[in-house]
């Protein structure tokens, strides 16, 4: 992707700590009779960036939605930031404060201004004073390079701008982990770059990230490991170089041959 050339020199080497950010063991989930996740095991250390890819319906979105409790699972263990996630409302509330999420459809609050979108959760969940919340919000809106849009409503922004606001909104809660669920899939082609640039920037700052995406350029450049899923299972986990140049599993080879034509 041409958009990535500016960063092709690669990201400065970063520290992946020994500390575990997310620990998934034997995770199983069913939608009614249909099993969507089968014995998923995955460990993410603090500061690590993982890209999850795979065909549609492979369970990638469901997996990351389990991490902040938007989906419940029936079997297995999931520990986020040291907090075991069971169907326990208190644990869930604690985890959600520390985990930011960016959605494919942005999901901004249309009746609130950009600034209000960003300050709502810090004020009401973190109990931050209004003035301080606004300062924090402006800081992150600057970081995603749209501070001048602070008083507009989401409907007045382009898709790319909306997604950057969504990223800023999540960052305002100072999360320890960011989840991205196909953040560029709903964007017009010429807006993909601005969102990916923002995510690369975030990675350079050392954010722990799990990104579900088909942007292979982004995966190559940013990911520490690439996870390939198919039919609810993890088929292959590898470094980006190995994953793209020497895929091991037949299913991975087929997938890559289809998307990297």
């Amino acid at each position, binding site marked *: 992707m041409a958009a990535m050339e500016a960063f092709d020199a690669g990201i400065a080497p970063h520290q992946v700590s020994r500390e575990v950010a997310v620990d998934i063991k034997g995770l199983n989930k069913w939608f009614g009779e249909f099993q969507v996740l089968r014995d998923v095991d995955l460990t993410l250390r603090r500061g690590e960036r993982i890209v999850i890819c795979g065909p549609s319906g492979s369970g990638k979105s469901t997996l990351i939605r389990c991490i*902040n*409790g*938007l989906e419940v699972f029936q079997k297995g263990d999931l520990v986020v930031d040291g907090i075991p996630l069971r169907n326990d409302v208190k644990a869930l*509330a604690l985890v*959600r*404060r520390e*985990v*930011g*999420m960016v*959605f494919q*459809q942005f*999901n*901004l*609050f*249309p*009746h*609130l*201004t950009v600034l209000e979108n960003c300050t*709502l*959760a810090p004020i*009401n*969940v973190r109990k931050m004073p209004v003035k301080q919340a606004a300062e924090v919000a402006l800081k992150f809106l600057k970081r995603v390079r749209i501070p001048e849009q602070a008083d507009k*409503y*989401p*409907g*007045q922004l382009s898709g790319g701008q909306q997604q950057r606001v*969504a990223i800023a*909104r*999540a960052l305002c*809660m100072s999360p320890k982990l960011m989840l991205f669920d196909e953040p560029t899939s709903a964007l017009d082609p010429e807006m993909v770059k601005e969102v990916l640039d923002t995510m690369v920037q975030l990675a350079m700052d050392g954010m722990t990230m799990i990104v579900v995406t088909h942007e292979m350029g982004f995966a190559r450049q940013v990911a520490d490991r690439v996870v390939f899923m198919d039919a609810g299972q993890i088929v292959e986990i590898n470094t980006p170089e190995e994953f793209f140049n020497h895929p091991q599993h037949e299913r991975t080879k087929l997938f890559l041959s289809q998307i990297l034509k």
Partner: protein
Amino acid sequence: MSSIAAVGTEHSLVFVRTAPAPSLPPPFASTGVIGWMRTNLFGTPFNAVLTVLIVLFIAWAVPPLVRFLLIDAVWSGSDRQACLATVAQPHIGACWAFVREHLAFFTYGFYPIEGRWRVDIFFAMLAFGMGWMLWLDAPRRGLGALYFFGIFPIVSFFLLYGLPPLGLEIVDTSLWGGFLITVVVAVVGIVTSLPLGILLALGRRSQMPAVKIVSVVFIEFVRGVPLVTVLFMASVMLPLFVPPAWSPDKLIRALVGVALFSAAYMAEVVRAGLQAIPKGQWEAASALGLGYWQTLRFIVLPPALRITIPNILNNYVSLFKDTTLVFFVGIFDFLKTIEASREDPTWATPVTSASGYAFAALVYFTCCYSMARYALGIERRLGRSERR
């Protein structure tokens, strides 16, 4: 065509504009009054026929109405003599003298004359509180809400019903009447039905089976029964099951009946609004750590209620007019006081009934139309986020 340099022959496929086309004034007949009439009133033959028919209808209906209500109307007088046709004045319009004479009865019903100042204070307090709540940029609206929903109802109750230690004699609710009753029933219904309706709508969408079943049964039962039946049940059947000492006042029973009835309708209106909010909004709020009630308050209810404002208002208007039904259980509301007065022999004239009903129509219309205008204003104001 001189400003365009055609390349090649007459049927050229290539074209480059060398100078912008000049902008000319529009043709005379498309602007101004004539232009407007041409497009809007006489655009097509059908349109023109409609225009003529409507103008004829207005010419037929409006002048007699104006003559009855204003020109031939009798504005003063002390009894029926003023409103009877004489040789000097063969055409008699509305007998406003009758309305003027009975205005106090229309307003207070049988409320004792020496206590009517209490009702006046109630009206003033209500107007003050409503002004505070309805003026959205008013200062200290939190305090206004405390006043309107907390202090005002309690003070009003003792003011209207009585508080002997303070020298306010007890006035039994069977003596209350007229516009006072209409206002009390309507305000109680309007203020309680929305929050109750929201709770019922949430209950109906709840994941908890017990809550869901209770909400669904309540809504469907109340909607399946006419309001008059609810009022009859409240006033006739309840005393059969509850000992008289425990049985609440007749007016309170009617108030509860009206409130629950309109809450059931409101619940369905609110549910439609909740349904229109995409699931992604809930998910985004959850992902940010907002709880259920916070999500409702900040994310879901504001847009859900905004899109249902026309329907909520519709319910309020019909509730306001349905307050007239309380007369079936022996409560003297505004319309009933007019009904009763038009049989007053002192004012028996051919135009008395028409005058009374015209006055009723005027009052109800003024109230309902103001509600409609206010709701429109709110809708516009809340629609800011849709501006591009």
